């Protein structure tokens, strides 16, 4: 109450009216933020300190869930390795591929919107549908890819049935669905003023120099954006590994969210699942922070941004 009377003196009656009106308009978000973000965030922190199977009331354990995960659960470290492998390869590689495709499309290409459309569509097709096709395509016995390999007398690839191949295979599927990043990059590239390229050419810059010294710096904020968004999505990849490999073979594609889902909704270990969720949350936050910090060194913000 005291705080609010202090504020009365700070704001004019008009500002008060504006504040009230503004809050009325954004109130759906404020309520949603409290109900669907803040409350779950805090309650999952609480559940992560308990054993809870939904049937009996939660039993308080302290940090036991975390301690067990870190020190007494080799499976957890395996899941962590799988996830970091998947994120560490698919995100940088995916962003690089998307950036290169966008650069190709940004040069004067005949039928640009056709190419762009074909590359974009896989990213909006239902993941369930694309998982079905990829499972079929990558099948060892009757998959089209191995059918083609066999026809040419090449060795077949056990895409989804070999622990060494399963992760790269899922990364391939993820990169296939990178079309949105391509479109974002292409839009950014089209915003780079032509005059800069012309000026660089006049100064004797070759293609690589122009790419390195004009294209990359001017689109670096978008590279940052795609890296971070890609990271957040890749850490939480679920549908494709769940449908394609169900975490197998030999747990080689048991990624973080697959593991979390299993614990929460198959084994009903809500406490352990919440601890897993909080660990993931902290990992994602720290990765994001590190990338943002490093971005000061490699991201170029022009005068107007």
């Amino acid at each position, binding site marked *: 109450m005291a705080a609010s009377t202090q504020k009365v003196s700070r704001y004019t009656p008009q*500002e008060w009216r*504006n504040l009230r*009106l*503004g809050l009325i*308009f*954004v109130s*759906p*978000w*404020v309520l949603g933020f409290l*109900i*669907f*973000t803040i409350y779950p*965030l805090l*309650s*999952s922190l609480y*559940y992560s300190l308990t054993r809870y199977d*939904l049937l009996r009331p939660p039993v308080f354990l302290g940090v036991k869930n975390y301690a067990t995960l870190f020190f007494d659960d080799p499976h957890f470290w395996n899941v962590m390795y799988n996830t970091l492998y998947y994120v560490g390869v698919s995100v940088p590689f995916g962003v690089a591929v998307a950036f290169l*495709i966008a650069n*190709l*499309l940004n*040069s004067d290409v005949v039928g640009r*919107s056709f190419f762009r459309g074909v590359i*974009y*569509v*896989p990213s909006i*097709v*239902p993941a*369930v*549908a*694309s998982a*079905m*096709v990829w*499972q079929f*395509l990558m099948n060892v016995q009757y998959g089209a890819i191995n*059918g*083609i390999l066999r*026809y040419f007398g090449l060795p077949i690839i056990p895409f989804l049935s070999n622990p060494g191949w399963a992760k790269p295979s899922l990364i391939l599927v993820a990169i*296939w669905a990178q*079309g*949105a990043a391509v*479109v*974002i990059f292409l*839009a*950014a590239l089209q915003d780079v003023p032509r005059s800069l390229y012309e000026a660089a050419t006049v100064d004797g810059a070759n*293609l690589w120099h122009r790419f390195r010294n004009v294209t990359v710096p001017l689109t670096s*904020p*978008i590279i940052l*954006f795609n890296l*971070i968004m890609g990271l957040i999505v890749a*850490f939480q990849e679920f549908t494709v590994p769940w*449908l394609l490999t169900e975490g197998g073979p030999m747990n080689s594609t048991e990624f973080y*969210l697959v593991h*979390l*889902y299993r614990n*929460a*909704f198959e084994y009903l270990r809500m406490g352990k699942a919440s601890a897993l*969720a909080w660990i*993931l*949350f902290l990992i994602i936050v720290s990765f*994001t922070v590190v990338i943002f910090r490093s971005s000061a060194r490699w991201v170029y913000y022009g005068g107007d941004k």
Partner: protein
Amino acid sequence: MTSIASENRTAPAPKYHYDSGRRWQTFLLEFAKYAILIPLTISFAFPLYWMISSALKVDSQVFTVPPILLPYPIHPENFIKGWQILPFTRYAVNSVVFYTVPAVVFTVLSSTIVAYGFSRLRWPGRDTMFWLVVMTMMLPWAVTMVPLFITFKWLGWLDTYRPLVVPALFSHPYIVFLLRQFFMTLPEELSDAARIDGASEFGILFRIILPLTKPALAVVALFRFLWAWNDYLGPLIYLRDENRYPLALGIEQLSRRANDIGNFSNGIPYLMAVSTLVALPIIVTFFFAQRTFIEGISVTGLKG
């Protein structure tokens, strides 16, 4: 401009050599460009082509080496037969009536109001609060998944679509963000004139701003439609009763049946046929609204 002219004047002699080398370079570059782009595009298109072409085959055309690229004779009846193996019409009704439509309507309506408050009204603390909205865009949904499930279970909402559509009433940060970007581009005088005429803020939003931002509404409605139509994890968590399944869970169910070899023949063609039918609304919408899609995606990134 002047520098180009001066460069041409200073070095006239080697110009011919320079130019022919350059022409070669340009030719090679053009060639390399398409030599990369065309195979790349074919590989991007191939899986979906394979889905559609396999949907038109029978088992004897599926299990062949080399794979049959152009199926003949084709079996379009797979689309009907595959659809009838499980109650896909009911799944489609569930997807549309109980999930997609309410999710789109609720999200767009609530997010419009919220975005208006964050862009066309001036009030103390607005930008700080908007910063929070942007932060929640980056919040991993995995953290809220478990406690929300517990809450919705406690409310007795399991096996209903309420956990999936009720949150849409409270706006979506990403869509608020997009709409705000659009609202900000409209001149302030527009609102001021209406305010002087005594219009309320809700009146200004619905009578002046919204008619001017129809393309933006189309963009966000399209994206929300996409998320709901494609959602798999949400229904997987909340829906157990098969009668309430949306299409995404129906496809998974069909794949389980089809993978038990011997259950019925043409399992893969049927699975591909139904997957095609479920992906089709998306592909067709993209075909007709390509510009809307591209515009929406581009605006997303351009803020950085």
